[in-house]
């Protein structure tokens, strides 16, 4: 490719077309064939060469991918603009497109050169070798535990949920004083009492809550009424909401 690009170059390129990676690759090859600095290549000459190659490919019925033909159409447009007399809008558009093309070719050229530069570097594992059997002085200490309160709480809740699911159901023991309990207690205590005694004296020991106390009081009242009905006890209340008094039945029938 020492002489200026010409028909023979185009002919030879047609045969190698499949070896190119696309239209841009071919254009760069053609530009390099001009043996000029890429900044000073003749875009018009380049376009003509490309179109000649495509024409040649058609003549030998080489099947071309679409992007080759798209580039050919675009270059044909570019050529028509570049042939216009300078100064018109269309001619300027052509100039601009030609510059863009030149810039793209320059960039591809630069990247090709970078790739060649890289490939020429002594590569690790190819040209230079590092130590293949490195020594490891790192010691793994797994003794420390990661302990965080949130994890502890999650674990506790998980344990309770799981435990709850499996535990047998046990009814809560009855803690409220029942009427039966009160009847038994009244029966046992009443015989030994000489006179009126306030109802709350009959309540059992150790009533912790107000609820338990009220429940025991009403149970004891019911028990007292029950005994009075059977004739075993007398009840009396001197004032509304006053203390309710109780004594063993004497037969006088006061309520």
């Amino acid at each position, binding site marked *: 490719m020492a002489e200026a690009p010409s028909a023979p170059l185009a002919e030879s390129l047609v045969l190698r077309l499949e070896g190119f990676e696309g239209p841009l690759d071919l254009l760069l090859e053609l530009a390099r064939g001009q043996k000029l600095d890429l900044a000073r290549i003749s875009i018009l000459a380049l376009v003509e060469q490309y179109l000649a190659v495509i024409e040649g490919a058609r003549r030998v019925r080489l099947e071309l991918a679409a992007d080759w033909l798209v580039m050919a159409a675009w270059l044909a447009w570019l050529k028509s603009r570049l042939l216009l007399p300078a100064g018109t809008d269309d001619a300027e558009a052509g100039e601009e497109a030609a510059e863009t093309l030149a810039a793209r070719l320059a960039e591809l050229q630069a990247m090709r050169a970078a790739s060649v530069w890289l490939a020429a570097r002594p590569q690790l594992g190819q040209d230079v070798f590092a130590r293949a059997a490195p020594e490891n002085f790192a010691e793994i200490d797994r003794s*420390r535990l990661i302990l965080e309160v949130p994890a502890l709480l999650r674990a*506790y809740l998980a344990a309770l949920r799981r435990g709850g699911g499996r535990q047998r159901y046990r009814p809560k023991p009855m803690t409220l004083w029942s009427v039966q309990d009160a009847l038994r207690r009244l029966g046992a205590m009443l015989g030994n009492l000489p006179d009126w005694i306030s109802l709350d004296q009959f309540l059992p020991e150790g009533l912790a809550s107000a609820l338990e106390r009220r429940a025991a009081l009403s149970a004891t009242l019911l028990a007292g009424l029950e005994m009075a009905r059977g004739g075993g006890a007398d009840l009396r209340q001197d004032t509304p909401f006053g203390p309710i008094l109780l004594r063993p039945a004497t037969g006088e029938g006061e309520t």
Partner: protein
Amino acid sequence: MSENDQKSTSPEVPEAALRLAEAFIFAAAEPVSPRALGQILPEDCEAEAVIAALATRYAGRGVDLVHVAGGVRFQTAPDLALLLRRVIEVPRRLPRVAMETLAIIAYHQPVTRSEIEEIRGASLSQATMDTLLEAGLITSRGHKEAPGRPALWATTAAFLAQFGLADLGDLPRRADLLVEAPSPGGA
């Protein structure tokens, strides 16, 4: 390398052979046998002599040429091992069962093993207890006055320290934790 002393002044080993041997032994994944070395040395070079000369050159340096099964290799000098050592801490998490057990002990202490099992609704392996004991997170604290006098378990000061708690009161109260009652009579 005891035998090097006699050969140390061996003048026949050319520098080029030394360089090649040095590079080969350095880059090889496995120890290099004299036979393998001989394959790339010039014909008139005795592999053993080159190895001996190289060992001499490296004597006393940070890297030694040592004889191991089947050949020689470079190895960092043993006296530097301590200085080169880096300890990498990889903390681990407690297994789930251990964490649950620890949580139950924290909230119910002092508590017997069978009580823990009842709360979790699953039996408790000795391995789990051992994990917590070895980590110093729990300790036994007396016995329950019940048939068999089972051991009572409680958390330790190390437990508080490791969880960053000033005291057990720093843990949220059970009532605050249990938005929904997890089970009827579950505690």
